[in-house]
């Protein structure tokens, strides 16, 4: 059925090969590059949520903590 249609395409047997190569190389290149990133950069990136330029650093939630981070405003 659709196999016959696919067979009519010249050089079709190389398609799955190309697919696998693309798929794996994308992942391999990505992983290599991610792990070659500089430590200092990664440290800066991962801390982005914790510094929102508002000078609020307390994220405490407990009742006994009297620090109120927005009191200054």
């Amino acid at each position, binding site marked *: 059925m659709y196999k016959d249609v696919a067979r009519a395409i010249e050089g079709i047997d190389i398609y799955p090969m190309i697919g696998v190569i693309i798929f794996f190389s994308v992942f391999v290149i990505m992983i290599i590059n991610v792990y070659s990133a500089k430590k*200092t950069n*990664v440290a800066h990136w991962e801390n982005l949520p*914790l510094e929102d*330029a508002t000078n609020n650093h307390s994220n405490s*939630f407990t009742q006994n903590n009297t620090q109120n981070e927005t009191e200054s*405003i």
Partner: protein
Amino acid sequence: MENQTSNQITQESPPIKKKWEGLQLEHFSYDNTIVRNFAYATTFWGLIGMVVGLLAALQMAHPMFNFTEYFTFGRVRAVHTNAVIFAFVGNGIFMGVYYSLQRLCKARMYSDILSKIHFWAWQLIIVFAAVTLFLGYNTSKEYAELEWPLDIAIALIWVVFGVNMMGTIIKRREQHLYVAIWFFIATFVTVAVLHIVNSMEYPVSLTKSYSLYAGVQDALVQWWYGHNAVAFFLTTPYLGLMYYFVPKAANRPVYSYRLSIIHYWALIFIYIWAGPHHLLYTALPDWAQWLGTVFSLMLIAPSWGGMLNGLLTLRGAWDKVRENPVLKFFVVALTSYGMATFEGPMLSFKNVNAISHYTDWTIAHVHVGALGWNGFLTFGMLYWLMPRLFSTKLFSTKLANTHFWIGTLGILFYAIPIYWAGWTQSLMWKEFTPAGFLKYEFLETVTQILPMYYMRAFGGLLYIIGVLIMIYNIFRTIQQGRFIPEEKASAPAIKVQEKEKGGHWHSWIEKRPLQLLFWSTVAILIGGFIEFVPTFLIRSNVPTIAAVKPYTPLELEGRDIYIRENCAVCHSQMIRPFRDETERYGDYSKAGEFVYDRPFLWGSKRTGPDLQREGGKMPDSWHFNHMYDPQSTSPGSIMPPYYWLIENQLNTSLTERKIKAMQNLGVPYPKGFEKKVHEDMAKQAAGIQERLANDNIEVKADREIIAIIAYLQRLGTDVEKVDPQYLPKK
């Protein structure tokens, strides 16, 4: 303790002050009003969506909970799914994105006006969606039930959101795009593509349209959309929010930022292929089914990578989980995400799917995701956000903990009985007596699991009680606080063209959000193209069956009533090639039988039996009585009565246009046939009226019930005229 940890973090991170030395600080403020509005909307629609869900659960347990024609299970279920997905989670996404994006970009939202338009238009769409679905205007395609005008409105407002988001990213004051933002970008792009492609429909009137795709193709597009709605509406945006709010609540950076980059690319690249796992053992070509299975199995890796990344963020901070309800909610949300994403690939094994498909197992699976992952992450965000927006402390930590425990119990009371119900029913369907006959009638498999349905409703009730406690707690928090609409902040501007020293290959893409947008789009489109192109271009993917003919006008009208009442929610029309199914329902379904089905009505759950071969099994009078009072013909059935079908006159004002639309879509009605529709309908209706009269049932020939009987009696009769040896195998 607090200060120690934050000190540690600043020691690890590069000295930021140094970086900013000599730079002019810009002062600006974050827009908290839009965040607060979306938070209110999330809470409000969440409650509505869950109450409608509870009504649906009660309707499954007893038919007396179906009120009038507007509140039958078929319509209520569509309102429930749409309300929970697009109203509750949708507003939750916007709430979290509008809060985190501003702070991660160190910039106010690009345009306050766009924010306002986005908020109000989205709420308006939700109201229209609920009203139209209750009125029965639906396309029957799951999670895409809304009719075409609303589809267009959704697309437009989605673009407003995207422009507002990309504009904010472009004017940001922080060079690096934090990983959460990538997830937001992927969400925006993919949902736009999915929604537009799946909502391609041919309008007949303002409230009626026909899918541009038919049969197998429609099914493939629908489940490519349906699965990726789960992926890119319920998962990627919430993963982005997880990457922001979990570190915020735990006050420590994410466990591994490198892992989060891998997580992102792997997830969006693989997820998009998995749709066909909803169609295993159906008439979909085998290669497409295997594609879905293989990619679904691979999905375990990025999903679990993301879950572990979230949970391990709490390493060394587990003591905080004891006293901080926000973290409690996040831990259960991540655990539920882990469970659901382990189960998903398992359900994609064809041999497991053979048992699970059409049963409550699927319902249990999605509710672990919805109640656990989406619900609990949303509650955690609300508990964390509200006190901050109102510059106060949470009114009661104790009440938040109470909500946590009641909600968790609610999830268990929901999920466990429904898993049990699914397994029970599937095993009963498949059981044969030693003599080789089916052991159970379909109805017996329904009455057997009703106690589980009652327990499920109880679980849902517990979950709602938890939400009510949360609403009270947040209300008191708001009362004691003072809202801060503008949160002041300051940061230096960045020059994007400046090369970061010691840059990293990935930073070129992070600095260029539009490139990130483009390549993310490419990553998701590859999967879409490979799935669709063969099915659309190669005709032989759908072997034709000459005996299959288009529906008569009366049958087409009957089919549209079937769609209006959303019968496909409980009745499938797709017989899988298993012995128990072919014994119970007749020959298994072939792709060629559905070429005139717009939309396809395969369904994905059998609360009632399959109807694909229903034609000719029962006399017309049985169908009449069954519609009027289902329990009279099937004692113990949970089907609601459809008495209005007997009272309502069939609206034939659009029939001519419907036939014309079908002709334009390529359905081979003879030329000029649209002129003869009324004549043709009257003839067929008179025949049914006569047969009913023979069984002492007096009914006018112009009633809706006549059309629905015509449609039901047609189902599956075409192929019966053909000798099985001449039928295609698929």
